[in-house]
């Protein structure tokens, strides 16, 4: 299996489209940091000010309420809708791409089970997703510290003030990114499943984004019917990474989110196996 994963990694990471996600983040993030730096000539960003506004009546606020960690938090908050597209771009290509290219006609005639091939492809998809999110995290925190320094982190919250020490902040970001990776694995699994149904990768990419956006709309629209559906949508749990910055950390809620998303990951993968094992390679 390790060898199969290795060759799937070669097939995936040698493709130019795999680099799109990293390139997009690599270009966008510095621009965002520069933009924030320019905005801060007039004072800390509004999001940070709002958090301490209620305290300023009775307290002097000493120290920087917006630093590299704040910038990284802001980036994470802004990009989590766009990152699924970059993930679907590769995950949706895993099966459909090979169908379109016709390469299944030389790979699947080998003495290797389709289950093994699919498992290797799925793991590669998860590896790509993990690397992309880690790249986002390291770059945003790294650039953030470079542009804005480090120190205690004032968590932007509307009704409470939470300051984390630098040591605590690193741990919280670590937890947040682990949860973000888990959430994005769900998106990747959905795109992977849709890839088994299509003969070219455009369909799974569009399909994934359509489903994500539709679910988000349902989650955010305060209709009674939608409120009943909401607990069953995976998009309800994808922003669980925010809970890493609550105090105390709501471990029960996080465990529930992780469990629900895990069910979706497993479910999408199982469906992918079923579909692909029964699929006739006719291309």
């Amino acid at each position, binding site marked *: 299996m390790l060898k199969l994963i290795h*060759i799937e990694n*070669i097939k995936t990471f040698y*493709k130019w489209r795999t680099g799109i996600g990293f390139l997009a983040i690599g270009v966008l993030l510095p621009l965002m940091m520069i933009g924030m730096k320019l905005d801060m000539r007039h004072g800390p960003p509004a999001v940070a000010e709002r958090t301490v506004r209620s305290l300023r009546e009775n307290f002097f606020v000493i120290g920087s309420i917006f630093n590299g960690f704040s910038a990284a938090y802001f980036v994470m908050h802004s990009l989590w809708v766009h990152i699924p597209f970059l993930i679907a771009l590769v995950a949706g290509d895993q099966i459909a791409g090979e169908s379109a290219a016709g390469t299944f*006609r*030389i*790979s699947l*005639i080998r003495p*290797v*089970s389709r289950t093994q091939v699919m498992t290797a492809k799925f793991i590669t998809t998860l590896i790509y997703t993990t690397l992309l999110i880690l790249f986002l995290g390291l770059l945003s925190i790294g650039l953030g510290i470079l542009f804005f320094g480090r120190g205690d982190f004032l968590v932007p919250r509307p009704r409470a003030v939470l300051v984390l020490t630098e040591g605590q902040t690193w741990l919280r970001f670590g937890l947040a990114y682990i949860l973000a990776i888990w959430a994005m694995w769900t998106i990747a699994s959905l795109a992977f499943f849709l890839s088994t149904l299509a003969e070219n990768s455009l369909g799974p990419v569009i399909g994934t984004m359509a489903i994500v956006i539709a679910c988000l709309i349902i989650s955010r629209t305060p209709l009674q019917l939608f409120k009943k559906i909401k607990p069953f949508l995976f998009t309800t749990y994808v922003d669980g990474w925010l809970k890493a910055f609550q105090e105390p950390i709501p471990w029960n809620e996080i465990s529930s989110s992780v469990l629900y998303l895990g069910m979706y990951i497993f479910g999408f993968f199982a469906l992918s196996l079923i579909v692909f094992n029964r699929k006739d390679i*006719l291309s």
Partner: protein
Amino acid sequence: MVLGTQSLSKRFGKNWVVKDLNLKVYKGDVFGFLGPNAAGKSTTIRMLLGLVRPTLGKIEIFGYPLSKSPKKALSRVGGIVERPDFYLYLSAKKNLEILGTLSGGIRKERIDEVLELVGLYEWANDKVKTFSHGMKQRLGIAQALLSNPELIILDEPTSGLDPQGMKEVRELIVRLSRERGITIFLSSHLLYEIEQVANRMAIINKGNLMVQGNVKSLLRDIKEIVVILKATPLKIAFDLLRKQDWVSSIVINKDSLEVKLPYNLISKMNAFLVESHIEVSAIMPKRTLEDYFLSITGNA
């Protein structure tokens, strides 16, 4: 028996594209699988290689049922299905490394050997997207030979090649069979191609098996045959032959004649022309599948 099918059938929707196919391929055979376009050849080959699930029936390869033991069944099989498609953004060598891993692991030396065998060693590190069609076809054969298979299944291996390329592929097939004892199952829609390389054949039409057996025996049943005759002077040969009642039909082309006559009178025609002081340079049978269909089905 190396490869056998029992009542093999495939349905897409309501359409049965392969019906009740019973094939037997023995060790050392070069087995030709013939049929016109859309006869069910490709679907059959895809089922033999595990790309398509049969609706009914069984496939056995080296004694292992394909549905239950696909790994064991395919472990000694190599194949090409239609035009071989590779990972274009990777080199030829990298493609073969990937396919070798899928085959259970191949020595690096073996990759060099097969590239050498098909004449692509010099381009081993070039990306496949730079390859011509003929080079890709040869690379396809290389990947089929990668795991030292005992059975090779080829689907229209000369498709898209120029005459020189076709000749090379046919020679390779014959060499593999004679020198290495590899059993070969190849499909084609060209009777003369199968006739040149195969010892046994089966013909499929509209999903149904028409005939199966030894090539020579099957083709001997044809009563009449069209031959391409090259002779000098051509016009005189034409005039002489068209007066003979044992010639069914004759057509004059630019540099040859197409003569239709009973199979057993070819030597008589040769002797007749020589006696008439006509210099005969070539007599080649021109057999088409359609002609064969007509002869075995008796359709005019």
